[in-house]
C-alpha cells in the first residue's frame, strides 16, 4: 500500500564550522528495506541522518527525495513522507502517552483545523502497533526506558510516513529491549512496507536486522550492501581499526563479529 519513495544522496558534503564530516558522499537508500548505518564514533552517522531529514543543510550536494531536493520541499509536506526520531527528544513534563503520540499528527494538521477522526485512528493504530495502548493515559516521565522508546516510536508512526529515520533507537536500552525495538521496526517494515533507515551502534544487531548495511569511514561510504557482504574482517579493520573474527551467527545465519583484543584470547596471537 505504500508507494516506494526513493531517497538518494548526491555528492554530499556536510560539516560543522571548519570541519567537514562527510565529503562527496553518494548513496542510495533501497526503498522498502531496512537500512542500518554503522561506523566509528564521530564518523558522521548522525550528521548524515540529520541531513537526510533536512535538519542540516549540506555544504555541497543534495539529498533527493523522489528526485526533489529535501531542502526545497515545504516543511510539512516533507514531514508527511519522511519521519525522523532524533536521539534524545524531550517529553514535556507530565504529558500523557496518547497526547505525546498525538503530536506526531502535526504535519497532517492545518494551523487552526480541528483534530479529525483520522487523527484519532492514526494515534490508536500507532499505540496498538507498539503495544503501548495500555499505557495511553500514563505520564511519559513515569515509564521505563524501553516503554518510553516504544512511545517515541509510536509518535513517529502516528506521523504515517513511508520513510522513517531513527538515530540510535536502541541506545540506553538493555539487550531485551534492544531486540524488542528492532523486532518492532522489522514488523513495521514487513507489514506496512515502511522504508527504515537507522543509525546503530551494535554491529551484530545491525547485521542481523538490516537488509542493507552501510559502513561509513573517513567521511565516505566504505562499504554498502547486504550484511553478509559488508560485515567482514577487512571492513571491521578499516572502519573501526579493530582486528576481529567474523563467523556465521547460528541463530540468524547473518555474520557475527567477534572482536579480538589483547587479553583473554585463546591463542597467543591472532591468526
Amino acid at each position: 500500500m505504500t508507494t516506494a519513495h526513493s531517497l538518494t544522496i548526491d555528492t554530499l558534503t556536510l560539516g560543522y564550522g571548519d570541519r567537514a564530516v562527510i565529503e562527496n558522499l553518494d548513496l542510495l537508500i533501497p526503498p522498502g528495506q531496512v537500512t542500518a548505518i554503522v561506523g566509528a564514533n564521530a564518523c558522521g552517522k548522525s550528521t548524515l541522518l540529520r541531513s537526510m531529514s533536512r535538519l542540516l543543510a549540506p555544504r555541497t550536494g543534495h539529498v533527493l527525495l523522489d528526485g526533489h531536493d529535501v531542502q526545497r520541499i515545504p516543511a510539512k509536506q516533507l514531514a508527511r513522507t519522511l519521519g525522523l526520531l532524533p536521539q534524545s527528544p524531550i517529553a514535556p513534563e507530565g504529558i500523557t502517552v496518547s497526547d505525546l503520540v498525538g503530536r506526531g499528527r502535526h504535519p497532517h494538521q492545518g494551523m487552526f483545523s480541528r483534530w479529525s477522526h483520522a487523527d484519532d485512528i492514526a494515534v490508536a493504530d500507532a499505540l496498538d502497533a507498539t503495544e503501548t495502548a495500555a499505557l495511553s493515559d500514563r505520564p511519559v516521565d513515569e515509564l521505563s526506558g524501553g516503554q518510553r522508546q516504544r512511545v517515541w516510536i509510536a509518535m513517529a508512526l502516528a506521523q504515517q510516513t513511508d520513510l522513517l529515520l531513527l538515530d540510535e533507537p536502541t541506545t540506553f536500552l538493555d539487550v531485551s529491549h534492544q531486540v524488542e525495538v528492532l523486532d518492532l521496526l522489522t514488523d513495521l517494515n514487513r507489514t506496512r512496507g515502511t522504508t527504515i533507515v537507522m543509525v546503530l551502534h551494535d554491529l551484530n544487531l545491525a547485521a542481523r536486522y538490516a537488509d542493507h548495511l552501510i559502513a561509513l569511514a573517513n567521511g565516505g561510504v566504505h562499504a554498502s550492501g547486504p550484511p553478509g557482504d559488508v560485515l567482514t574482517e577487512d571492513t571491521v579493520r578499516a572502519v573501526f581499526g579493530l582486528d576481529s573474527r567474523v563467523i556465521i551467527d547460528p541463530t540468524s545465519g547473518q555474520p557475527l563479529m567477534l572482536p579480538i583484543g589483547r587479553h583473554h584470547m585463546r591463542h597467543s596471537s591472532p591468526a
Partner: protein
Amino acid sequence: MKQERPARTASTTPPTPTTQTVLRGRVGRFARRRTVVLVLAALIVIVLCVTLLVGQTIYSPGEVFRVILGENVPGATFTVGRLRLPRASLAVLAGLCFGLGGVTFQTMLRNPLASPDIIGISSGASAAAAFAIVTLGLGGTQVSIFAIVVGLAVALLIYTLSFKSGVAGTRLILIGIGIAAMLDSVTAYILSQAADWDLQAAQRWLTGSLNGPGWAQVVPVLVAVVVLSPVLLGQSRNLAVTQLGDDAASALGVRVDRTRLIVIATAVLLIAFATAAAGPIAFVAFLSGPIAARIVGPGASLLVPAALVGALLVLVADFIGQFALGTRLPVGVVTGVLGAPYLIYLIVRSNRSGGSL
C-alpha cells in the same frame, strides 16, 4: 492547504477499543481546559465588576452601568469613568500581556525561570519608559515605542550573548538575570536624577503600578492585545511541537527558527506595551504560566489559560493593594510578595533535582 491522506482503517469499521481510549483522553483534556478557561473568564468578570462598584464610595450596579453607557451620573461619572474603569481595564489588559508573554517564553525555552520579568526584558522596557518620561519628557505612544525598541534590543542582546552553537536555556537565564540587575539600577539612577522626582513614578517603574492611568495609556495596550495575541495563538500548535526539542519539531514539519522568531518577537512586544503603561508588574509573567499549568493539567496549550490567570492576578492584587491592607500599595508590591516565595521554591527544587536549572 491540508492534504488528507486516507486513514489506514476505513472509517466505517467500528472503532477499536484503543481508538476509543485515545478519543476519551483527548476529549477529557480538551474539556478540562475549556472549563478552566470559562471559569477564569467568569472570575475576571466578577472581580472586574466588584472593582468598579466597590471603593471608598460604593456605587450601585445601575449607576456603574449608566456610566459605562456614557450617561452623566454625578460623582460616579468621575470616580468610575475616570478612575476605576481605566484602572481596571489596564489591570486586565496588562495582566493578559504579562501572562501571555510570560508563558510563551517559558514554553519556548522549556524553563519556568525563563520568564521575561526574570531575564531582563521587563526591566529593559521599564528603564526605557522611565528614561522617556522622566528624562526626555515624552508621553503616550512615544513612550510605548521607546519601551518596545529597548525591550526588543534587550531580547536580542540576551539571545546573542547566550548563543554558542545553539541557545542553551540555562545560559540565557543567567545572562538575563545579570542584565535585569543592570537595567534595574539604570532605572533607579534615572529616577534619582529626575527633577520632579516623586514616589509614584518610582513605584511604577521599579515594581509596577496601576495608579491614575488615563485612557491614553490604556488604548495602546488594548491595541497590542487585539493585534498580537491572535499571532501568538496562531503559533500555539507549532509551539507545542517545539517543546519536543528542535530536531523532533523540525522532523514534524515545524520551521523551528521561524516559529521562535515570531513567537519571541510577539511576546516581547506584548510585555513592552504593558510595561510602558503599568511598569514591570512584578512576577505576573513569571507566575501565570505555572499557575495555569497546575490548573489545566499537562499537555494542553497554556496560552489562553495563562493570559487569563495573568489578568486575574493583576486585578486581584491591585484590589488587595488598594483596600485590604490599610495603606495603599502599588500592585507590584502585592504580586512581588506572591511571586518571591515561588521563585525560591523553584530554585530550591531545581537544586535538589540535580543542580541545573
